[in-house]
């Protein structure tokens, strides 16, 4: 009979609520063996992975009260950092972590898992290994090719619990990873202590979004569970929230295509027989099953599609509101047929999409309302071209055609619409797509990843930052 394993869970890309210290104190009174929080995900789209930029979530600041408690009590923390979670994102977060440790006088020894996949490694796997097959039928992807690998800006893998376990086994104060499977972070320590995979995965699924699984749900709050061989009890460390059967079961639905079946590296979590019962202190969860399967990791890769520039116009003129779509269609046609752009359009180097807010900007062709019913509307011309110069030129061309283009019954011959932003063309950014969303078969779950143990603050890291700031 193994001893219970107690997890304090939260989400590290969401700022904690103001009274989080009370929650942490309560959780440690109950007992905590590991503090776990996820901070990666693909929900924000492919931009971050492709560009290398970091969502401004200040993940180091969010973990600070939890790291303080973990170090005081001598229990490890396990975090994934960086949203998109490639090396560049992880490094941005680790530098903030350096500063946080420096500021607090902490010197933890941290295991770091870099989960970006080297393109050489992946090319060799594609060339010599079993097929790397698409993970989503909806993506229109084919089995991965060498060209896909070459075209991707970056590729990451959602690591399972194994690399985290390897580093926890070295006796570190904590583990920080790049892109990771959320529930794998929660599964790592319990499985090392003999908790069955099904129980560990079920708990991970309920804890991975922190207090969002409570009532009322709030990812800025934490959540606590005690795992044993047959199941686990979930509690709310906050007096402002509580765990309920309804809140936990509904959380198993969250952001999942199937309510009870979830494929993971090495197996599928099956909650079809799961049970949830109220106890005096929380909710007892049991009955999960784990069906073993070959070990595969989900890969995410982003390819550059071009550069985006936009222009925004406001329409308040009643006659133009009645014919807004034909007016924007005419402007789009003029762009496409302009001699200076025609070759780019034909070669696929230039794409344009005009969204009319107030008509169908959200649903597009699915929108059942075919007319503008309000008194004003917004027109966003969205241009994606091979390069910034072309995107800007097209957006400006489109703006002018919309601004001065004639339409039947026009009275407003000095200008058709309001221009709310100057300059009228807004260069946005490079644009990316998820070109890789595939499953990589692996014999060794650690093989593609770089594991290290590093003392924070890392030598020179904070000083370098300071020197840079001085310049």
């Amino acid at each position, binding site marked *: 009979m193994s001893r219970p394993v107690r997890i304090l869970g939260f989400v590290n890309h969401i700022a904690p609520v103001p009274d989080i210290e009370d929650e942490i104190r309560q959780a440690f009174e109950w007992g905590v063996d590991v503090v776990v929080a996820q901070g990666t995900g*693909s*929900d*924000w*789209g*492919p931009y971050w992975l492709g560009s290398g930029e970091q969502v401004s979530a200040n993940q180091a600041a969010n973990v600070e009260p939890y790291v303080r408690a973990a170090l005081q009590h001598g229990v490890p923390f396990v975090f994934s950092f960086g949203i998109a979670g490639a090396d560049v994102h992880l490094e941005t977060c680790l530098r903030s972590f350096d500063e946080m440790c420096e500021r607090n006088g902490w010197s933890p020894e941290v295991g770091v898992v870099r989960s970006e996949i080297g393109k050489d490694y992946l090319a060799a796997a594609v060339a010599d290994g079993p097929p790397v097959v698409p*993970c*989503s*039928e*909806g*993506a229109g992807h084919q089995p991965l090719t060498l060209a896909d690998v070459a075209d991707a800006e970056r590729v990451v893998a959602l690591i399972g619990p194994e690399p985290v376990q390897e580093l926890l086994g070295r006796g570190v104060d904590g583990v920080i990873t790049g892109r990771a499977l959320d529930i794998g972070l929660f599964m790592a320590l319990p499985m090392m202590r003999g908790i069955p995979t099904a129980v560990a995965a079920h708990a991970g699924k309920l804890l991975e979004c922190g207090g969002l699984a409570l009532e009322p749900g709030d990812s800025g709050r934490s959540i606590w569970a005690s795992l044993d061989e047959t199941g686990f009890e979930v509690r709310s460390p906050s007096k402002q929230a509580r765990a309920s*059967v*309804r809140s936990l*079961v*509904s959380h198993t*639905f*969250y*952001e*999942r*295509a*199937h*309510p*009870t079946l979830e494929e993971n590296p090495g197996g599928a979590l099956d909650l079809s027989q799961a049970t*949830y019962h109220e106890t005096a202190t929380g909710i007892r969860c049991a009955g999960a099953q784990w069906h073993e399967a070959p070990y595969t990791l989900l890969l995410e890769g982003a390819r550059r*599609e*071009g550069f*985006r520039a936009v222009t925004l116009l406001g329409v308040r003129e009643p006659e133009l509101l009645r014919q807004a779509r034909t007016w924007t269609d005419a402007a789009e046609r003029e762009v496409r047929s302009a001699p200076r752009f025609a070759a780019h359009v034909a070669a696929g180097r230039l*794409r344009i*999409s005009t*969204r009319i807010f107030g008509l169908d*900007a*959200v*649903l*597009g*062709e*699915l929108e*059942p309302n075919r007319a503008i019913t309000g008194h004003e509307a917004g027109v966003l011309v*969205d241009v*994606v071209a091979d390069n910034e110069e072309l995107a800007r030129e097209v957006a400006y061309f489109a703006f002018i055609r919309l601004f001065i283009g004639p339409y039947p019954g026009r009275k407003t011959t000095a200008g058709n619409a309001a221009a709310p932003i100057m300059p009228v063309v807004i260069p946005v950014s490079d*644009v990316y*797509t*998820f*070109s890789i*969303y595939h499953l990589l078969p692996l014999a060794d779950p650690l093989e593609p990843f770089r594991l290290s143990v590093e003392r924070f603050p890392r030598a020179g890291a904070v000083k370098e930052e300071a020197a840079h700031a001085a310049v």
Partner: protein
Amino acid sequence: MRLYECADIIRSKNAGPFTLTIDLFFGDEERYSIAKGSMLLTVAGVAQAYGVEESRVKGVYFDDRIRAAKVSLLRWSSSADPFCADMFGAHLHTPLADGELVPALSKGVPA
């Protein structure tokens, strides 16, 4: 009654970049039964509401314990699409929510 009036909570969100999932929660047994027994909350009903092939609807599921339903379908424009209008998929419930809850006799009595 439309689904919009019947459900208390309508949670639209991505399940990965290429799949949309809509979680529906109902306040009482009566309304849950109406929804569960409806033509709308079938694979065919969802396909019709979104104007897509039935093969793009991954499933319609129910959980009696918490009076909830889940509808999952492949996204017609995913967050990988440069012109995706809803990156999080948080606002794509309305074609379904606008649907009328007409009994589907062939579904039988809710289990």
